[in-house]
């Protein structure tokens, strides 16, 4: 919602999509319930115009936050899913050199019509803007998601420093300066596999997404599946938390723990079965362990304990 007094955008985390609603890419939209600290951090990032770096366990909802913010504030969302081979320039723009070469050769051999020649003379035909480039040129303030930045090479965050600082970049091939009309709200997620360079960290705000507590987990489940019984929700959450605590004690802080998204998948299956059957199963062995436990050791250890 836009704060009428100052024209500032303010995220509250309360506006949830209705069931069955879909976004621009025809993906189903699910409710997202952020913790109050996260809401604070998001609003700080919006106000100070700095990127927000999000870390947390896999499956805790780092990527979904950007979707939720864009939905609530009604802003366009540009996603940039970073790969290990990504270069920083790909997110800004890409220049179609091969196309230009092909067109030049066709023109040289006289196989092009006049209107095509007019087209190829314009440099902008070959420039394709990446997510960040499009966000800079958008007329309204937009939301940019840079997902899993630690997958890329170590130089990748360093190459983005100037763009993050000044919200502008130069298209080298054409010599064109692209300056942002309004600086976008940038969310950066990291899985903490590699260290990020200090100069990059300095420019970002940081928030660590903790695992939600019992109450919040129940609320999350109820918002996504509103017609399920509260008793089932409660017992599922309790059993899940117990399992998670056991895993944490056994594996220590670095082992893989079962996350929110796995829990939601598991609950999705649980609710399709008759309730009393599931409730009795929850007390003993975990039903449908394949959704939660992803390694053979985990299966052996935790299934045998259920008796």
């Amino acid at each position, binding site marked *: 919602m836009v704060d009428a007094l100052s024209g500032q955008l303010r995220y509250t985390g309360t506006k949830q999509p209705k069931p069955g609603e879909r976004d621009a890419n025809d993906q189903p939209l699910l409710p997202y319930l952020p913790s109050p*600290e996260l809401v*604070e*951090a998001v*609003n*700080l990032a919006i*106000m*100070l115009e*700095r990127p927000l*770096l999000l870390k947390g366990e896999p499956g805790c909802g780092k990527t979904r936050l950007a979707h939720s913010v864009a939905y609530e504030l009604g802003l366009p969302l540009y996603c940039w899913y970073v790969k290990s081979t990504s270069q920083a320039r790909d997110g800004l723009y890409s220049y179609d*050199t*091969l196309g230009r*070469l092909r067109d030049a*050769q066709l023109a040289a*051999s006289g196989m092009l019509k006049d209107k095509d020649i007019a087209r190829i003379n314009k440099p902008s035909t070959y420039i394709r803007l990446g997510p960040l480039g499009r966000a800079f040129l958008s007329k309204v303030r937009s939301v940019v998601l840079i997902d899993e930045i630690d997958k890329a090479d*170590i130089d990748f965050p360093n190459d983005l420093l100037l763009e993050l600082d000044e919200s502008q970049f130069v298209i080298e091939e054409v010599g064109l300066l692209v300056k942002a009309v309004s600086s976008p709200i940038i969310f950066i997620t990291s899985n903490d596999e590699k*260290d990020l360079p*200090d100069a990059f*960290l*300095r420019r*970002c*705000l*940081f*928030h*660590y997404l903790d695992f939600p507590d019992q109450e919040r987990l129940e609320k999350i489940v109820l918002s996504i599946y509103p017609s399920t019984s509260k008793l089932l929700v409660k017992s599922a959450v309790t059993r899940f938390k117990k399992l998670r605590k056991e895993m944490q004690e056994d594996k220590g802080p670095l082992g893989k723990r079962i996350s929110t998204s796995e829990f939601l998948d598991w609950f999705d299956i649980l609710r399709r079965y008759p309730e009393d059957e599931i409730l009795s199963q929850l007390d003993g062995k975990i039903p449908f362990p394949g959704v939660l436990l992803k390694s053979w050791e985990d299966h052996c250890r935790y299934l045998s304990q259920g008796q």
Partner: protein
Amino acid sequence: MHYEDLDLPLLELFNRLQSSGMPLGIDEYILLLQSLQSTYGGTDYESLKRLCSTLWVKSKEEQRILEYHFEEVVLNYREDLSEHKESLRQTNKENLLSRNSKSGFPYRVFAGYLLKLERFISIVWNTLQSRKKIFIISSIVLILTLLIPVTYFLLQGTEDLTPSNSQDPQFTTSEVVVATIIFGIVSIFLVVNTLSSPRESTKDSTLASERYHRLYGLANLSSDEIQLAYLVHSFEGNHFSKARITSTIEYLPVTRRQMKQGWRCLRQFVYEGPKTELDISSTIRHINRSGLIVLPVLGSKKVNRAELVILIDCSNSMNPFYGLTCRLCETAAHSIRLKNLEIRYFYNHPIDHLYKDEAQTDAELIEDLLGKDFFRKRRILIFSDAGSARGRFNSVRIKCTEDFLRQVKRETRLVSWLNPVPSYQWKGTTTEIIAKKIPMFEMDRKGFMNAINILRGKHVV
């Protein structure tokens, strides 16, 4: 209460965090002030702490450091504030008294002395522990209980002796008995309370032990790269008095971050492998030369070909530097890809065997390694004290090391030596001679970077 009303010690917190190693600059402080000036600062210390951590903290370890320093600063601030208020109150009282006294000078002086006495007693009283307070009260009451019948009987006795005009005794017998009984009960109750009051002391000690554990937990962190003040606790009995900060020293000379940055510099990009990438400039050159429509020219991908071999001395003289050794290996394994890194161990000096593990169980002959081209085209970093830890001069050691270095230098020219013992201790030992044969640096930040630069092929002054 808004933050503008409070004179918060934000700058002190910032300075503390900066000196404990967090990379904060003046921009970060200005950022904090900017966000406080908006409506975001909450109205309590918790939200201020959250704000600081969102702006300044970038990892879990830093979060712990921030929390520790924040608590300290807020605690000190609150104490100062209350002390300030207390002293303000006292001076106000004095002023009030001195202003209001209408009688003459002596009364004012007397009132002043009385106030000073009161302040002295209150200070002494407040600094005493509550347990001691109870003890003092109970002992006073006990003494009074004993004194009353004694004085009464004494008075009775004296009255019998001195035939004075009938002055009734001050107290009747029954009143004395009642008073004695009351005082007795009260004192017994207090004594019993003092002896069996674990609640008071545990409350103090749990708070203090919490604080101690918090500090101690951070002290475990200090073996890591963050500079942290070393705290010395002195306590009498169960009471932890305020910690005295003795010194701010970093425990190990090169931090983890610095090491990782050093390892990252060791790169040598070479174009090799299958030709899959489009090479634009060579395509254009090709077309220029031939003038025909041609297929685009492809080139290979960039690959990091820098391979590193770390040879570590695991003899007993290197035991004090075990922390450094571990840190070196860990950061190297973290920053350098597995196939580009080899770590081997040797005992005292590299002759005959190199071991794959610290316990020296899996040995490989150096001749075999040389035959397998183990050292060829690789960068070699040797981490050893070279005899300077014991401070002796051993010509056999020199000869063996020289032989090894000669053999290795035939395979590769990028070799450097890191010595954890400081350079002023090298004089007169084996190290001095070895240092002339091979670039040797002591293990501090500058030395480490110099060693890395040698391995990159750069010239070091």
